């Protein structure tokens, strides 16, 4: 991973991986400087097939109720419910892409962007970060790997107060995680080296 040459723009590259269910993910890596790196993982988009299937189910059920009750309010209610449900899903549930920004000696920032454009950001200061690791977990019938940040315990110097998992909705596989892990470890190692010798 060579740094940028003189006069070149920040290095960017994009690779495609897959998540634990087999969907396609795109990992977009932006290298701003030796101390600043950004990873953007794009989740698979909402598919037209599933949207049509859900809408048809809801409307068929509403039509069935309508034939039972002879009340046309049910049909309008079904339309409202479908619209509101879709808006709510896009705004609160469906995550479009997740971004990880690591800035040496400042901290790590995770952003989740929803399909409606809403962004939710969390920033963890470098002083609180103990390490970034890949951990295993049992998820239903699978064993999956996930990347997580370990936070320092203010009371105990060698303890861990919290584990913050990353890329929770994208759920990439191990090959993608290794890419991100290597770059994070480079920056963390550099940060630890310079913080001991100020």
């Amino acid at each position, binding site marked *: 991973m060579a740094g940028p040459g003189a006069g070149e723009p920040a290095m960017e590259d994009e690779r495609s991986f897959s998540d634990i269910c087999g969907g396609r993910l795109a990992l977009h890596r932006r290298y701003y400087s030796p101390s600043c790196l950004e990873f953007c993982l794009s989740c698979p988009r909402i598919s037209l097939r599933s949207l049509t299937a859900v809408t048809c189910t809801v409307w068929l059920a509403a039509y069935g109720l309508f034939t039972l009750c002879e009340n046309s309010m049910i049909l309008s209610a079904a339309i409202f419910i479908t619209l509101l449900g879709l808006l709510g899903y896009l705004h609160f549930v469906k995550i479009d892409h997740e971004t990880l920004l690591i800035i040496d000696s400042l901290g790590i*920032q995770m952003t989740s962007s929803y399909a409606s454009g809403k962004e939710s950001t969390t920033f963890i*200061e470098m002083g609180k970060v103990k390490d970034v690791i890949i951990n295993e977990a049992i998820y239903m019938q699978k064993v999956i790997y996930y990347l997580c940040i370990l936070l320092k315990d203010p009371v105990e110097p060698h303890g861990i107060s919290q584990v913050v998992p990353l890329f929770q909705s994208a759920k990439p596989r191990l090959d993608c995680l290794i890419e991100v892990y290597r770059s994070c470890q480079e920056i963390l190692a550099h940060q630890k080296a310079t913080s001991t010798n100020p």
Partner: protein
Amino acid sequence: MVLKAFFPTCCASADSGLLVGRWVPEQSSAVVLAVVHFPFIPVQVKELLAQVQQASRVGVAVLGTWCHRRQEPEESLGHFLEGLGTLFSHEPWLQLCRERGSKSWSCKATRRQGPAPLAPACEDQVMLIFYDQRKVLLSQLHPPAALPERQAGDATASAGGLAAVFDTVARSDVLFQSDRFDEGPVRLTHWQSEGMEASILVELAKRAAGPVCLLLACLLSLVSAASACRVFRLWPLSFIWSKLSTCEQLRHRLDQLTLVVSAHRAEGPAQLMRKANALVSVLLDMALGLLLLSWLHRKDRFAQLAEALVPVADGSPQHPSPPLPTPPHPRPLGLAASHSDLAACPVTGGHWACWWPGAPRRGSQTGHRELQHLLQWLMGAPAGLKMNRALDQVLGRFFLYHIHLWISYIHLMSPFIEHILWHLGLSACLGLTVALSILSDIISLLTFHIYCFYVYGARLYCLKIHGLSSLWRLFRGKKWNVLRQRVDSCSYDLDQLFIGTLLFTILIFLLPTTALYYLVFTLLRLLVVTVQGLVHLLVDLINSLPLYSLGLRLCRPYRLAAGVKFRVLEHEAGRPLRLLMQINPLPFSHVVRTYRLPSCGCHPKHSWGSLCRKLFFGELIYPWRQRGDKQD
């Protein structure tokens, strides 16, 4: 470590000058607070900085130079700026430079490696972080970083990480007091240099608040002194006050108002928010109460309310009673129960004629009539179950007589109900919560007979259950040992066993009847309790919702900060990294959780398991517990 320079966005277009701010060595970050422009006299600059340092306890110093220049660099300016480094010695010495009209910045931070002035200098890598000074000044981080005590003579204040930046900017407001229209010796650029921010309304409100608060505080102290006087401590009155939820609510509101108008200044931002929330809550409450009052006074609502609450619309003496059919011939006990058996009761015979279903009714069925129908249904064959006739009749008539007594009392009060309601309705101007508390108290007063029925039914059932369990033990040849709190075997005499078994059989065959009455009245009681509980929940919601904080979060989200977020700005190779620091506002749920006002605390006392257990054994339940008071 990479050197972080926090630069205010308002200074990005300022003319060249000196950078003034605070250096935090632990995080290797320089927080730039303002830019001092040429021409200046170094002694005056140092004086100003010493003044600011003394007033704000923040270690303000000259951090470096700022150069905002045209495309061609001027050699003389460059040497001049480097010379300033020897004048205001600071380690490390920052040199920020920006070309006019473009986005390219350059930063240099030099450190001297030795004590001699000509020792070789080493350069650090610099990262520029832009921040909005006004927003950072006004915002408040949650959770608040624990700050060490400000010791005398200690010019530094240390806090972890980014909280140090917020703290520095917030405490240096002394530096931002002068704007460019002031005739001071030093010309500064900061967020307020274009002119001090102020609002006429806010200033007027501040002036007026003093005397108004004083007046209100006097009034409130009078009211609380009056309520604390000896007369109200006497036994019957104190018992009544403790039972009514209106008094609790009024007391709570009085406490809140006393807090708001108290003469002490708020100690910290949390206290200030609490006062503001309490004030907004009281104002909203009064506004809603006045709305309710105006709605009630329209279209003769009080008469309708009176009719709904008191079921004597057709039994009152003003209305001519219609011709009533004669009551049927009374039949002896033991046969099928019907309306006729009611007439057989000598005391109530004459009175029951008034309540004959043939009489015309205004409006829908009233509550008491429903209760009577329910009891008559129970005395028949409810849900197809066959009850024990004798016990059924006794219990049914006992309860029906109670209802009759209750109706007679209400009958006495009926002419005054409308006036009482009208006067109580006036109390709605004290607030919607007070009106709702009064409603809850009226409900509990009017359903007092249901409470009595519940207590009778529960006690009877409880006695029966205890008797049954004790006799069941006897049936098996065991006994409850009170000393050891356990079941022991015991040898009974034959006559004891005989009588015990007989009683056991009697009790167990009478169990369905008692159980059914208990079930019905418990359900009624639970219904009333649920309605009251809902009213109390609503009152609690109005009392404890922090509306000012929610409004602040909606309109000025930067005031309540959960943290920060960074955005990488356009980056060119060879130039320093530029980031924009923005404030991440607190989510609404956290706002409510942090700034919730303490309220009367109406929450269920029992868990579901213990509630079911108490219901099964017939123990009396009081599901909603107020703060130490029993709710009737």
